[in-house]
């Protein structure tokens, strides 16, 4: 059944990844318990990585899993353990109606811009082997481009990371009490 229509199976994958990513992101912002919210964020990140794989960006998918789901999420979990939050606040505040209204307006705008663009609404899947002019695989080609065309940006991001690390250290340093 799936072999006859060559485009059905990737479409099913896309549908699964995107729908679960959206549901997980809704859970991330909607759950009361921060730990449950973190697990939902993990699920979101993993399904976004799946979407990256579908779009033939294996390197970005691997980076997403390693860095985002592996390092950043673990950092969040550490801080969560440190803070030891018992219960959070109520979700529906006087600001939530305004936030939802703005969110709905923005969503309509985005969808409008999407449907009126000349690219149309294409499923983010292309059949394998079609129109991939890159002679070598994804990681290698990204690496080559990174170190030749985008060397300046690469170095700047390195400096930025250094600044981030130093800043985090300075912020979290406890003044010695005598």
């Amino acid at each position: 059944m799936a072999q006859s229509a060559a485009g059905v199976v990737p479409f099913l994958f896309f549908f699964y990844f995107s729908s679960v990513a959206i549901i997980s992101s809704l859970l991330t912002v909607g759950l009361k318990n921060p730990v449950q919210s973190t697990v939902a964020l993990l699920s979101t990140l993993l399904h976004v990585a799946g979407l990256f794989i579908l779009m033939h960006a294996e390197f970005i998918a691997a980076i997403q899993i390693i860095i985002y789901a592996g390092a950043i999420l673990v950092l969040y979990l550490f801080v969560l353990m440190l803070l030891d939050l018992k219960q959070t606040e109520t979700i529906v505040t006087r600001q939530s109606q305004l936030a939802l209204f703005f969110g709905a307006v923005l969503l309509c705008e985005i969808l409008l811009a999407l449907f009126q663009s000349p690219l149309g609404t294409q499923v983010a899947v292309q059949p394998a082997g079609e129109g991939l002019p890159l002679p070598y695989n994804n990681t290698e080609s990204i690496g080559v481009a990174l170190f030749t065309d985008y060397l300046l940006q690469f170095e700047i991001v390195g400096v930025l990371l250094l600044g981030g690390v130093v800043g985090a250290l300075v912020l979290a340093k406890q003044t010695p009490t005598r």
Partner: protein
Amino acid sequence: MFVIGLVGVLMRRNFLIILYSIELMLNAANINLVAFSQRLQSHEGQILSLFVITIAAAEAAIGLAIIVVLFRRRATTNVDELNLLKW
């Protein structure tokens, strides 16, 4: 996904969840970047998305450092109560 993150940032009072929502918005932008990179058969979107992930990592670290410091002083993560700058 971007709108969900945006609503999350505006609605939630817990600082940690606000950070999560920012990550959601960044992820949505990343999806967009990679999709266009595949559509236009170019590397640029993926390289930019790589930088976005890196910058998100740095921002998450700084944000967590901030919340740790704030928590030490006020013992709360509710942004409504973190109003030291209020006049």
